[in-house]
């Protein structure tokens, strides 16, 4: 056998070993984190129950239904629209494991882009998961990609054309769930998931929809509520309620010309009142240093501290960072305030949900204190 043939065999064997090791790591991302059914959960359905077109696909996702004793209005909370924005996913899980609706119905989708939880964004060095200590032991949660897994929707076009408006965006945005609303039944997987969420809202006549996000500290829309014009009264009342609790938050109108986003299209195409909320997440920012699970949980990053001193950020940033307790606390407390505001304006058709973790309690006890033990198999 010639020398170059021997080296070729060695190189090929090396490639196969590297592929096997990397492949095993990538495949492990398809194991979802565990969500425990809390005392308020009455039923767990799938999004395909509202739109069968996604049944059996990676886009189909769990919908936790939490019905109160009395019928009333309803709220839908979307976590994990962008799986690299962990406070949205965790806040949704905290609702599932703690909230007890008294009047009305709460729908929670903790993995709105289920496919996005099965992959990381390339070249970002993101962790595949992060762990939170709870009284019953550690629990891990998935950190995913901003967009649908390319394995599930490939190839990307050069230019993404938003179907209902004709708006053009970068081709990779075709896998961004929050650019695909109102979706299409015969579109891409991402558009089908958007369509499924719209069908849920229409068929259940959902009163309020809250889409939970995070933003890079250098992004202007941060620590903010973005509201469709018809939800502006509700949002402004919520901001006042949060300010009364000394939680600073800005109110942004949904841009008319930025299409495909939940706060725009859900308001235009359904009767729901759509709101989107943002907290500060360094682990998705462009200015960050080392990216690991600690950054996801603490938000501590010396480069962001430096950027803040240079006046480059839209949130205060110091050595304390922006821990997950603060970010989840903002989301959960804001949801409570949205409900308070709704009930003040609509006392005849309230949505009453009890047992929501409080902001101060989350800061002192931590998120783990509100996560339930995983039942033994």
């Amino acid at each position, binding site marked *: 056998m010639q020398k*170059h043939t021997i*080296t*070729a065999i060695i190189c*090929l064997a090396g*490639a*196969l070993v590297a592929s096997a090791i990397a*492949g095993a790591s990538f495949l492990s991302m398809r194991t979802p984190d565990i969500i425990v059914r809390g005392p308020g959960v009455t039923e767990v359905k799938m999004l395909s129950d509202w739109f069968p077109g996604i049944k059996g696909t990676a886009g189909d996702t769990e919908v936790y239904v939490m019905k109160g004793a009395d019928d009333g209005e309803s709220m839908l909370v979307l976590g994990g629209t962008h799986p690299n924005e962990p406070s949205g996913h965790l806040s949704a899980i905290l609702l599932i494991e703690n909230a007890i609706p008294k009047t009305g119905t709460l729908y929670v989708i903790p993995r709105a882009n289920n496919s996005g939880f099965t992959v990381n964004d390339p070249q970002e060095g993101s962790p595949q998961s992060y762990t939170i200590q709870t009284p019953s032991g550690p629990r891990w949660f998935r950190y995913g990609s901003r967009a649908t897994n390319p394995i599930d929707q490939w190839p990307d076009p050069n230019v993404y054309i938003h179907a209902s408006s004709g708006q053009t965006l970068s081709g990779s945005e075709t896998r961004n769930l929050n650019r695909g609303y109102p979706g299409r039944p015969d579109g891409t997987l991402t558009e089908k998931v958007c369509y499924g969420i719209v069908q849920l809202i229409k068929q259940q006549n959902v009163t309020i929809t809250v889409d939970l996000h995070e933003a890079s500290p250098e992004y202007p829309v941060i620590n903010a509520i973005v509201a469709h014009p018809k939800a502006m009264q509700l949002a402004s009342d919520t901001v006042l309620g949060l300010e009364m609790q000394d939680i600073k938050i800005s109110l942004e109108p949904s841009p008319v010309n930025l299409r495909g986003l939940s706060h725009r299209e859900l308001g235009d195409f359904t009767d729901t009142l759509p709101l989107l909320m943002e907290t500060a997440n360094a682990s998705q920012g462009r200015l960050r240093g080392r990216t690991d699970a600690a950054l996801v949980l603490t938000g501590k990053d010396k480069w962001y501290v430096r950027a803040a001193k240079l006046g480059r950020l839209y949130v205060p940033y110091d050595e304390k960072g922006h821990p997950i307790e603060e970010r989840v606390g903002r989301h959960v407390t804001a949801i409570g305030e949205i409900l308070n505001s709704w009930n003040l304006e609509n006392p005849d058709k309230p949505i009453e949900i009890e047992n929501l973790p409080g902001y101060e309690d989350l800061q002192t006890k931590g998120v783990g204190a509100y996560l339930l033990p995983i039942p033994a198999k």
Partner: protein
Amino acid sequence: MFFIYLAILAVVLALTVWVLFDTKKLSLQVTAAMVIVPLLLRLLMIK
């Protein structure tokens, strides 16, 4: 479109393996081996 891209991928992977065994330059063989990894993972729809 998906299957067309997959077929293109299979052809590129086959050509890369062919180069790996055809060339006598070690540096090119190592490069080909590195190129094989992402091509193979996508062909198997893992990454």
